[in-house]
């Protein structure tokens, strides 16, 4: 996902070389507080936990998940060292950005 976003941004940047970017976005950016990290602005958009991470995730089996996951729904899939497989819906992740989870004893963060 992140890779796709960066790729999209890069290709859009190339297309826009000859023209100016949306002035609405520029104006919005200028209103936000920022600080520089390694010379690049880090904008403060929300307060910490303004988007709630999932810190104690619960899971269901595939059959039960069919009730709320569409076949074409994008997911992040992982397999643990003992072969346990888990899927995290990307549509759902947009509302949380981070799932703090444990997979076969390995602590992982699914980030979006």
């Amino acid at each position, binding site marked *: 996902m992140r890779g796709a976003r960066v790729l999209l941004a890069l290709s859009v940047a190339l297309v826009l070389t000859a023209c100016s970017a949306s002035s609405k976005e520029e104006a919005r950016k200028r209103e936000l507080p920022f600080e520089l990290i390694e010379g690049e602005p880090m904008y403060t958009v*929300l307060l910490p936990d303004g988007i709630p991470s999932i810190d104690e995730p619960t899971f269901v089996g595939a059959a039960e998940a069919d009730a709320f996951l569409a076949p074409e729904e994008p997911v992040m899939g992982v397999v643990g060292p003992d072969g346990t497989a888990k899927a995290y*819906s990307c549509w759902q992740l947009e*509302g949380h*950005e981070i799932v703090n989870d444990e997979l076969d004893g390995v602590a992982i963060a699914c980030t979006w």
Partner: protein
Amino acid sequence: MYSREVEGDVRTFGVSGKLWHGVMVMFDRATGTLWTQLDGRAIQGEELGARLAHYPSTFTTWEKWKREHPDTLALAKPEDERERTGSRYADYFEDPDRLWMDHLADDLGGIRPKDVVYGVLVDGEALAVSEAVLSRRGVVNAVVAGTPVAFLRSETSDAVVAVDRRLGERVLVLEPFKGEDPHVRFRDTGSGEVHGPDELKTLRVDRAYWYAWSRSHRGSRVLAD
């Protein structure tokens, strides 16, 4: 997908609400350190220099994943989250004109050689801020060579100072403050306390044309419109 281990210690991560390079920044609940989602590096705070190990994952569809892993578990989705069918950022992905919070547009503009900048040099790393940006903002907080700094511009005197943002154990994040006191003051956004720049350690700051600064400080970063 990242491992949550930092030096053998398992951390829990939250959403900081900040964006860097257009990408969400996390914080770990134990130390408040900021971590970029780009490559799992700590970019500010106690764990600066550390990096989270990447964990292999697959981006696919539910249908395909189930086919490959019929025994898979799935993250439970509460009732109120089941109505959403589709990405809430669909117009970002589909509209070629939307560069949401993406700084790449800045790279297309650029600073001109005769633009005036204010520059600092910390441990061999140079950073400059254009006069235009500093005049508009009043304060620019930054990190140079791991040191939290701020450029402060006085509205009354046009004087610019650069300070180290560390005060005792704390790192302040400053914003301009207009009070009745005629002296120049700045407020720490974290605590709400008001400080004068004399309370913080000042750094040498040079005022120069960009072409002169960049020539004598090769590789200097610059923040400009």
